[in-house]
């Protein structure tokens, strides 16, 4: 992410990661979002996470729907292919892309209008199927590009910039993702990069459907008093269940913690999520407990953040479909076409 044009020539002193890229190599075009937009902070966190994960940028496919959030994939990972699809339908396009090539990393970027309003059905079904991806909703509770209408995640009773009060119940994407079987569910805040980066890293290393709901204030239309998605509101009501560290399988673990203070969760690829507990009773591997914890705390007006649920042994759609290890898009005619002799037999069966 960047909103000032920078020279494309890199300073020689920039640090290279293990695959030989500088952090700048993960940037994209200049952002066209408003100055101070929470989404730009998320783009910066994605850049940071991918650089730290030593992912080659071109091994990521970034897909989005329509809206402010969905424009952002143009502003990071410029060397990755991106697909800005239609409104609310990114999940299906991502599913198809993933089926075609299981070897790439899929990053889905969406917004609250895109995923909770027009695209609620696709959001729900992609979680059900367990498509391997990191699905990020940049959630600001408002339609920015069409100038400030409420979205489906706006809390009941929250006030628009023009003073209208929202009377509809909000869609809770985290609750839905938990209920429908997502195997990595987190919430974060665009003002907390320290929390976002390890969560994104965890999601991108996850073996199944990973979802992060990131509250991302809209500085232009939803950052006033009376809004429950403003910087001030989220800072005041942020209730993090834990602090998370992402540890790759290569990293050496040096810090020691007292027993009971941390939970280590090892994912399928060997990476470790080290959670420093902020709530002694919180167990992020218990789906039902996560759901009731969320319900209780949200009822009190708290914005629960952190890694809410993870199934470290999650599998994905390819596992359940038993698809070829070789990517479907690389299979050639010899592997796909049964040939003339088989056809002659089929013909004989039709006589």
């Amino acid at each position, binding site marked *: 992410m960047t909103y000032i044009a920078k020279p494309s020539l890199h300073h020689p002193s920039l640090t290279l990661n293990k695959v030989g890229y500088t952090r700048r190599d993960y940037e994209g075009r200049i952002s066209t979002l408003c100055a101070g937009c929470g989404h730009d902070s998320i783009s910066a966190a994605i850049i940071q996470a991918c650089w730290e994960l030593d992912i080659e940028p071109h091994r990521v496919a970034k897909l989005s729907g329509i809206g402010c959030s969905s424009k952002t994939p143009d502003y990071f990972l410029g060397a990755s292919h991106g697909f800005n699809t239609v409104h609310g*339908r990114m999940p299906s396009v991502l599913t*198809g892309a993933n*089926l075609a090539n299981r070897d790439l990393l899929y990053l889905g970027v969406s917004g609250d209008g895109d995923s909770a309003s027009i695209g609620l059905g696709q959001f729900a079904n992609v979680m059900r199927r367990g498509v391997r991806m990191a699905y990020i909703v940049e959630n600001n509770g408002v339609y920015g590009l069409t100038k400030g209408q409420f979205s489906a995640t706006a809390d009941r009773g929250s006030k628009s910039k023009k003073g209208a009060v929202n009377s509809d119940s909000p869609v809770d994407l985290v609750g839905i993702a938990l209920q429908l079987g997502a195997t990595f569910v987190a919430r974060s805040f665009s003002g907390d990069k320290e929390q976002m980066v390890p969560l994104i890293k965890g999601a991108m290393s996850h073996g199944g459907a990973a979802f992060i709901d990131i509250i991302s204030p809209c500085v232009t239309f939803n950052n006033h008093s009376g809004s429950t998605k403003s910087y001030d509101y989220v800072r005041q009501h942020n209730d993090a269940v834990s602090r998370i560290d992402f540890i790759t399988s290569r990293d050496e673990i040096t810090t020691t913690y007292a027993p009971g203070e941390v939970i280590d969760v090892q994912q399928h690829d060997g990476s470790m999520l080290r959670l420093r507990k902020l709530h002694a009773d919180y167990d992020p591997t218990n789906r039902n407990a996560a759901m009731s914890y969320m319900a209780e705390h949200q009822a009190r007006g708290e914005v629960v953040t952190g890694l809410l649920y993870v199934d470290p042994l999650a599998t994905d759609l390819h596992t359940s479909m*038993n698809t070829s290890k070789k990517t479907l*898009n690389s299979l050639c005619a010899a592997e796909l076409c049964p040939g003339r002799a088989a056809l002659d037999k089929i013909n004989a069966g039709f006589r």
Partner: protein
Amino acid sequence: MIQPISATNDFVIKFANVNGSGSASANELFAKAVLRMGVPVSPRNIFPSNIQGLPTWYEARVCENGYYGRRGGVDMMVAMNPQTWDADVAEIEPGGYLFYDSTRPMPPTRFRDDVQIIGIPLTEISNAAYSDPRQRQLFKNIIYIGALSVLLDMDASVFEKLFAEQYKGKERLLDSNVKALHLGRDYVKAHIKSPLGIRVQRCDKVGDQIFTDGNSALALGLVYGGATVAAWYPITPSSSVAEAFQKYCDKLRVDPATGRHNFAIVQAEDELASIGIVLGACWNGARAFTCTSGPGISLMTEFIGLAYFAEVPATIINVQRGGPSTGMPTRTQQADLLSCAYASHGDTKHVLLLPQDPHECFEFGAAALDLADRLQTPVFVMSDLDIGMNQRLCEPFTWDDARAYDRGKVMTAEELEAGKDFGRYKDVDGDGIPWRTLPATHPTKGSYFTRGSTRDAYARYSERGADYIYNMERLLRKFKTAANLVPQPHRRDATQKTKVGVIYFGSTSPAMQEALDVLQADDLHVNALRLRAFPFPDSVNAFISEHEVVFVVEQNRDAQMRSMIINEMDIDPAKLVRVLHYEGTPITARFIAAAIRKIMRSETATVTSLPRQKEVA
């Protein structure tokens, strides 16, 4: 007393059944037996949108001359459904035959005195032989097939051989079916003078043709064409395309060494997701398709516009049914031409392939995948219920093992590395088709951002008029290129020079062949052009120019193909005469010939479909 109909290898027999009674397999057995005797037959299912209980019909035309269109009229009615008795009896041609279950006596008023009545106590025979209620029902169907076989002079051995093939390894089922067949045969031999005036006689008119349905054929074509990703949502009459694809993949696409699948099939949550999955897979370099019908197309249109404008390949199978809205879900029409050819908002045009039978369904299924990749655009295969859900005799499927898949213009890592200029939306070859790259091709070169908004030739967001025009004009150029790549029209000229032409396509084909013969016998000469795809190549315009009048025969109300011809080629509408049949049953030769004859003899007003077309002849 009217003379009974006398015809060998040329009659229509119609079975009136109750949905869910197990009659379908018995009726198919009858059709296959006729084929095994070397006599062509074309059956059609006429069924309601229902699982169990409502009326269903199976109409089989036995025709040594090889006319596979629906003829119209019924020579013999097998009336197994009391619910529809009166209408079924009324449909029989004078001199025809009524076959019924005489277990319960019927008052004489329920019959006609101008048809031959053949009463057989089917229920009584079945109940005497079987005790299980389900068996009584199922074998009653086989008993009537047995009875018919004697009445129509068909050998028991033909049926016995079919049973032996079908129940190989299931000897108990084999024996009980053979037994039921003979129960019917024995009764007729003992009680009814046979054969009737209509009968089947062995001949050699089937040859190496195959007997299958368009939906299975399409599925097989998609397997052969290399589709690896399928996404669909159940809808009549297209669901069996996906089901057949699954069946063939389970058989032909499982890696023998690993047991892993070289395919992925998603039954999606709706048609929007189905087409979305297809676009995602094709964007990422797989071959993917979805199959649907009219209502599904309506839901997909936003995505279809994206695929057109962002130039993502996609194969869309549309097995058309009666519209608009829910319309007639189990009836046939060709009424989605406009909604597919110009699907989505803004200026869009799409490639349509128009198969005439299962053989072309196979060919076009495979061809669509090549064309979609070559043209980087959605390609529709416009089948319909008549082709899709009925078994039809057709040429066997063929495949050349030397054939390679045409993956179109995909730039490789080597080409990028060598410094080849990559402009995703740039016309470098003059055919309007740009080059594309697949995700992850090269670490630093060739990435781009795919979007539905306007952009310049290098895929950079742009709202400049010049960039927009460049792109839209290039898309037109690409469409012109498509006209020469798609299956070309087939022409059949009359035996005499004529200024009258006819244009037709798709499932109208068998009826048209017959109508042309009928007209010629009437000394009415018509040159015919069968369209096999849209956009139209120049030969279509040339054909129209050669003639003073051109009939356009289609199965919809609004003459959609005629509109497309006028729209695309600026043809004078006065020259194109509508012949429209759209009441849900397949068009007949009788209807076409009557409509054309009427105009050619009188040159009066435009012909349109009558509410009940069968009287037209």
